[in-house]
């Protein structure tokens, strides 16, 4: 029986890999249908296997073992292996389910694209990489998966490789992620240096004995080892999960096709950082400083990225900023030691955010790839399924009681409230204010797209707001009467709407207050969040009813109300506000000028420095002074050689070499 489970563990990642290989290397041979059958078949097998694994884990069976040994150096072993516990099993289910939905959706969305097979190959490869990441039982394989999802993200953002903005965005995404990975690998290095192993179980078991160790990063400065490790690893998470100040790549990643925005840049890959910190809870629990750092970074991201969503006009970018903000929420929960809450929000968010992205994609199809919400409106009656599912997704996102997002977000707010760490006050304020902001931008988009006047016949003229819209490769279409999209698109929307509605209600009790996670997540006694949450929790129904009397609910309602007033009744007010608050508005539209700052400081700075070192260092000093100190000698020599270039100088050279050998040998023998 256990042997069968191990085969199943292998099936989970390898089935999508097989699909990717078939669709990628034999795409021409198997054709479009063959490619999507192979890819979807692989992911379906993976999903079904994940369900079985999940059931097995629920029955109390966990697994921690090696698949193969990557490298050994004496006693040091680097391995590829799986750790299958409740945390892994839950991630496997989320990843394979969302991936399956996105695979099906892709049939419709990429229908006319010449890169159809390639796309399927990439998203299956992504599924494989993500599964290797979550199933890992050691830091090395974690890093493998970590970089592999980054690679596929790079390939997919630049999927439309002739589009200049896309190939700029994918390079930017890869490099910003590499900044995070830079911290990540140093963190891994410290783990190896101090624990002598990269195996989770070994490291976690040894962690308490090293809790008070310090390292001197520079003379006189002694840092807690766990703090340094925690922060370095978290820098990796900041890259992957797009936390301030490494958030800049995620909005630009929207240049990729919409299905991958849903799968990679909302539901799964960007949550890898959250997953990683939750997985490392036995380490993070040993450093309040690292947790505090995490909480503040998360709070900044949650609030300030939410602000940016309020002024975006590109439908995908609104959802992207919403994703940034929600990732910030998860990060705050991590900082408050509410790891299970963070993972819980990760799960609910995966469903409703994938839903929102795919719905946005459905709208984009209907709008012939015009993504500017100022040229939409009134789509409700043309696209009933897209409309209702979008509404469900938006309501779930803003935390409407009883919907999935409510349970997870409310728990995060509570966790931030009870945390005693430095920065917790700010974090609490940020996540609370963020509720209003989230409601405002979500329903601004919702109203502009589905309600109000039909503006899609106007074509794409420039409005009074700066144009931040980016069109797909198909250019802007002129839409007469929009249609609902085909079933391969709407089917996944409906399938994702169900968990967006109900998963929170159904699972909050076992996931947060039951022993679902068991030993997978560790919380120290001195961190009160989970304990306090447990005290106040009296069932999911009670929690939903109680919400009507709490501040977050009314903040969300105010956000929805204000956006309805602004965008349905008085569209002149936001325009007037934008003019009156010119600086604030420009700051938001320009995303706090981070792109400009980074491009000036790093992109230009590095090239300037490189150019200077090359011309001054290599050419002037080394070559100019030392090497060509005898420049004329070189010139004379070259004249000499030119004169010799009658033909077969190399013959002589070889002969000479052999001759020298022979002569020396012979001469020596004589002696």
């Amino acid at each position, binding site marked *: 029986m256990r042997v069968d489970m191990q085969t199943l563990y292998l099936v989970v990642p390898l089935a999508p890999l097989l699909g990717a290989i078939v669709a990628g290397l034999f795409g021409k041979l198997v054709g479009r249908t063959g490619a999507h059958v192979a890819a979807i078949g692989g992911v379906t097998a993976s999903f079904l296997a994940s369900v079985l694994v999940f059931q097995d884990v629920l029955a109390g069976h966990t697994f921690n073992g090696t698949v193969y040994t990557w490298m050994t150096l004496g006693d040091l072993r680097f391995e590829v292996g799986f750790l299958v516990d409740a945390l892994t099993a839950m991630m496997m289910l989320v990843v394979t389910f969302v991936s399956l939905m996105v695979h099906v959706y892709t049939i419709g969305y990429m229908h006319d694209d010449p890169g159809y097979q390639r796309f399927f190959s990439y998203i299956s490869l992504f599924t494989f990489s993500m599964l290797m990441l979550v199933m890992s039982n050691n830091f090395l394989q974690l890093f493998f998966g970590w970089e592999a999802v980054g690679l596929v993200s790079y390939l997919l953002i630049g999927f439309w490789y*002739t589009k200049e903005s896309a190939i700029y965005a994918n390079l930017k995404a890869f490099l910003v992620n590499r900044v995070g990975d830079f911290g990540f690998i*140093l963190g891994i290095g410290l783990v190896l240096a101090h624990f002598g192993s990269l195996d989770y179980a070994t490291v976690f078991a040894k962690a308490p004995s090293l809790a008070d160790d310090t390292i001197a990063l520079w003379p006189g400065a002694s840092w807690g080892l766990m703090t340094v490790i925690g922060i370095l690893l978290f820098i990796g998470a900041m890259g992957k999960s797009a936390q301030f100040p490494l958030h800049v790549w995620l909005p630009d990643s929207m240049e990729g096709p919409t299905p991958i925005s849903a799968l990679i840049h909302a539901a799964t890959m960007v949550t890898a950082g959250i997953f990683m910190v939750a997985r490392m809870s036995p380490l993070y629990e040993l450093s309040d400083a690292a947790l505090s750092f995490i909480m503040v970074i998360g709070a900044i991201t949650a609030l300030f990225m939410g602000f940016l969503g309020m002024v975006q006009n590109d439908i995908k970018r609104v959802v992207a900023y919403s994703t940034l903000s929600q990732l910030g929420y998860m990060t705050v929960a991590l900082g408050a030691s509410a790891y299970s809450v963070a993972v819980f929000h990760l799960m609910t968010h995966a469903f409703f955010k994938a839903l929102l992205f795919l719905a946005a994609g459905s709208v984009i199809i209907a709008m012939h790839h015009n993504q500017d919400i100022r040229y939409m409106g009134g789509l409700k009656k043309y696209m009933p399924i897209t409309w209702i599912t979008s509404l469900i997704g938006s309501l779930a996102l803003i935390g409407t009681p009883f919907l999935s997002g409510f349970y997870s977000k409310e728990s995060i707010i509570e966790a931030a409230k009870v945390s005693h760490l430095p920065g917790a006050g700010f974090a609490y304020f940020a996540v609370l204010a963020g509720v209003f902001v989230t409601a405002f931008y979500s329903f601004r988009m919702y109203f502009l797209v589905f309600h109000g006047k039909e503006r899609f016949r106007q074509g794409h003229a420039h409005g009074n707001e700066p144009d931040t819209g980016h069109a797909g490769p198909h250019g802007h279409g002129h839409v007469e009467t929009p249609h609902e999209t085909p079933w391969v698109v709407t089917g996944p929307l409906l399938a994702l709407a169900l968990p967006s509605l109900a998963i929170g209600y159904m699972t909050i009790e076992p996931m947060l207050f039951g022993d679902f996670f068991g030993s997978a997540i560790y919380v120290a006694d001195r961190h009160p969040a989970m304990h306090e949450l447990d005290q106040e929790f009296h069932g999911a129904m009670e929690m939903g009813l109680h919400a009507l009397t709490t501040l977050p609910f009314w903040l969300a309602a105010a956000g929805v109300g204000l956006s309805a007033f602004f965008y349905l009744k008085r569209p002149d007010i936001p325009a007037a506000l934008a003019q009156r608050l010119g600086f604030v508005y420009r700051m938001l539209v320009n995303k706090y000028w981070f792109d400009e700052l980074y491009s000036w400081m790093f992109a230009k700075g590095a090239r300037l420095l490189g150019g200077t070192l090359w011309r001054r260092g290599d050419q002037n000093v080394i070559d100019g002074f030392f090497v060509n100190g005898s420049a004329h000698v070189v010139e004379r020599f070259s004249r000499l050689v030119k004169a010799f270039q009658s033909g077969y100088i190399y013959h002589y050279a070889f002969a000479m070499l052999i001759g020298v050998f022979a002569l020396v040998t012979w001469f020596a023998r004589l002696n």
Partner: protein
Amino acid sequence: MFGQSILSLVIWVPILAGVIVLATGSDRNAALARWLALAGATLGLAVAIPLATGFDTGTSAMQFVEKAAWIPAFNIHYHLGADGISMPLILLNSFVTLLVVIAGWQVIQDKVAQYMAAFLIMSGLINGVFAALDGILFYVFFEGMLIPLYLIVGVWGGPNRVYAAFKFFLYTLLGSLLMLVSMIYLYFQSGGSFDIQTWHGTPLGMTAQTLMFFSFLLAFGVKVPMWPVHTWLPDAHVEAPTGGSVVLAAITLKVGAYGFLRFILPILPDASHELAWLVIALSLIAVVYIGLVALVQADMKKLIAYSSIAHMGFVTLGFFMFNPLGAEGGLVQMVSHGFVSAALFLCIGVMYDRLHSRQIKDYGGLVNKMPVFAAFFMLFAMANAGLPATSGFVGEFMVVMAAIPVDFWYAFIAATSLITGAAYTLWMYKRVVFGAVANPHVEEMSDINAREILLLGTLAVCVLAMGLYPKPLTDVMHASVVNLLAHVAQSKLP
């Protein structure tokens, strides 16, 4: 019957094959020369295979040893042997030679026999460098291999080839002469022996060690090349034909790094410890400074040449961490760089053969016309950027891991290559491969043919296999490296 002389075969089969190819004479017999060269290179690789299959990973002693008196008057021997450090390099060299012969198949139309012969003879001489256990024998091979290389650059090279070849010559000559002086000194100190393994046990005073350290450092540092004696490499690459660049990057640079392990560390352990800071500093400068310089290169070959220097910085850094992870990391990086740089230079060659330019600005949108090539190029670019599951990751990872316990900041500086390496490689890739078709010349480019797929495909398999399963390679090295480090840990001060 040749069981006792595998290393001799590995050296002399390619050289003999080279001489036979040379005998075919002028270009009227070009086809014959090509086939003979292919047969010679294949045979050269075939005779090297027993080194891997018959290798005993359990011992650090020299294997496949051959020893015969050569110049008894000076106690000079024809003494060969291979251990876990040199064996992988011999295999790599024999393998790359075969690739180079195939790569030059259609491209070289001028003096074909001489071209092929030069590579075959060089291959044998380089195997000699790795196998030699006698100082003078080493020196002869070490100098001898430069002659064919010098000719490859000087004859089949670009318009500025003479300057490049001369610069190369000047640099290497300087170091070599000092090395010879050191060897003669060692001969007297060791009581009249040129045996390298004897030198490993010869007691030496600190002054002598320090002086010799600098002379060997110059000799081998130029070859690696280490900053600041690196400026010959970009010029040599730019002027060299594709095959020349491949051998230069994949093999010749390794000779320098090999010298550190065979000479500097075991013969001069005290000076090595004392002056480790210097090598570490030069290595880290190579990683950072050269990484930035690579970023601004407009010529693809120069860019990859600079990238090679930065990658070799990891090798020397790893050696001077004085722990198994670092030393083996450096060795793994050498082998990996052999595959990756060879592949990248072949990729540039593929483009150059079609468009006759190496300038990044002359390209753009290649993927539209050459999708298969673009996929290979992407793999190798990612390997160059150190992506896990490619060979490029393994060595860099090991060296960074090895540096952390020595000094966190060494690792910190070295790890910046994660960012710079990705920046210069992928930025080049973006400008060359992605985008819309940039100009009518690109529009006419055709995708790679079967021969090119064979070349790049073989290297792709190597890059991935080594990235996914480096264990066989580190298993081969481990015993020898541990023995070497034990040796280095012992003071030799009298």
